[in-house]
C-alpha cells in the first residue's frame, strides 16, 4: 500500500504524468473527431478537456500541478504561431490578389467582434468591469489579456471568455457557412480566424489547408487591430 502511495506521490508531483495524460487525451479526442468525420460538435479541444477534467477532479489535483506537466504543450503555442508563416508563404499569390477583401473584412469583423460584445453586454445589464473584460474576446489570448488589463478589465475573466469564444466559433463555423452556402475557403477561414483566434484556426486547418492559412492571417491581423480598436470603442460606447 505504501508502495502505491509512494508511486502516486512521485507521479502526481512530476510533470510526466499530466504531460502524458494531455497527449493521450488529445490523441483519443482526435481519434473520436476523425471517426465522426470532424463533426464540428466533436471538437478535439472540448473532448480532450472533458476527458482530463474528471481525472483531475477525481485525483484532487490542483490546476497548478496539472499545468506543471501541461506547460510543455502550452509553450508550443509560440512556435506554432510562427509556423503559420509557411501556409502564408504557400498562399502568397492568392493573398496578394485578395488584399482588399482581407483588409476590409478585417476592419468590419474586428469592429463587429468588439462592438457587438460591448453593446450586447450593455443590453444584458452586465457591469462595466465585465464588459471591459469581454471586449477583446475574439483576439488571441496573450493579446486579449494585455488589452483587458490596459482598459481596466479582469484578465482572469478575459482568459475564460477568450477560450470559450474560440470553442464557440470553432463549433458554429461549419454549420453557419453551410447554411449560407459559402464555399470560398479563403472567406470561411478568414472569418473563423478573425472571430475565434487560434482555436478557430485549429478548426480551419482540420477542414482545409487554405482555410487554415486565411484563418492564420485573420488571427494575426486581428491581434494588431483589436489592440487599437478596443480602447477607442470603450471610450465611445462605455
Amino acid at each position, binding site marked *: 500500500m505504501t508502495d502505491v502511495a509512494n508511486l502516486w506521490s512521485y507521479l502526481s508531483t512530476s510533470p510526466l504524468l499530466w504531460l502524458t495524460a494531455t*497527449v493521450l487525451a*488529445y490523441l483519443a479526442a*482526435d481519434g473520436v473527431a476523425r471517426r465522426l468525420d470532424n463533426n464540428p460538435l466533436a471538437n*478535439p*479541444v472540448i473532448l*480532450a*478537456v472533458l476527458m*482530463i*477534467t474528471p481525472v*483531475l477532479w477525481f485525483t484532487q489535483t490542483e*490546476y497548478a500541478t*496539472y*499545468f506543471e506537466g501541461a*506547460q510543455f*504543450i502550452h509553450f508550443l*503555442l*509560440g*512556435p*506554432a*504561431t*510562427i*509556423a503559420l*508563416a*509557411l*501556409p*502564408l508563404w504557400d498562399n502568397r499569390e492568392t493573398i496578394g490578389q*485578395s488584399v482588399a*477583401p482581407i483588409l476590409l*473584412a*478585417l476592419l*468590419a*469583423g474586428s*469592429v463587429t467582434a468588439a462592438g457587438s*460584445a460591448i453593446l*450586447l*453586454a450593455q443590453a*444584458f*445589464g*452586465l457591469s462595466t468591469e*465585465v464588459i471591459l473584460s469581454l471586449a477583446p474576446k475574439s483576439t488571441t489570448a496573450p493579446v486579449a489579456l494585455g488589452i483587458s488589463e490596459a482598459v481596466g478589465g*479582469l484578465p482572469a475573466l478575459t*482568459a*475564460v471568455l477568450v*477560450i*470559450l469564444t474560440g470553442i*464557440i466559433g470553432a463549433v*458554429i463555423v461549419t454549420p*453557419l457557412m453551410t447554411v449560407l452556402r459559402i464555399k*470560398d475557403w479563403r472567406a470561411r477561414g*478568414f472569418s473563423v480566424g*478573425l*472571430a*475565434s483566434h*487560434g482555436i478557430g484556426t*485549429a478548426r480551419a*486547418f*482540420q477542414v482545409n489547408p487554405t482555410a487554415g492559412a486565411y484563418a492564420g492571417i485573420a488571427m*494575426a491581423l486581428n*491581434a494588431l487591430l483589436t*489592440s487599437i480598436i478596443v480602447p477607442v470603442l470603450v471610450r465611445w460606447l462605455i
Partner: protein
Amino acid sequence: MLPTLGLLLVCQLIGEVIVRGIGLSIPGPVIGLTLLILILRLRPALAEQLRATITVILANLSLLFVPAGVGVIGNLEVLSEDWFALLVVLVLSTLLAMLAAVGTFIGVRRLTEGRSP
C-alpha cells in the same frame, strides 16, 4: 524536425527580444512569424525543408489549446452569476463577427474580381 524547431524557436526569441526591447504591445510570436516570412522570401528553398514538421504542428494545433481549456473549466466560477448572459453574448457576438467578416470578404472580392477581366 529539430532544425525546423530550432528555426521556429530562434524566430520566437528574436520576436520576444524586439517586442520587449521596443516595448510593443503585440506578442513576440507575431513578430517571429513576420520574420520567418522574410526569411522564406530570401531563401524560398527553405520552405520544403520546413514543410514536414510544420505540417504536423499545424494539423495538431488543437492539442496546444488543451492546457488552457482545462484551466477554463476549473475557473468557470469567474463567470459568476452572469454566466448565462455572458454565454449568450459570446455566441451572438461571435456569430455577428463571422457574418461581418465573411460578408465583407465575399462582397469586396466580387467587386474587385468583377472589375478585373
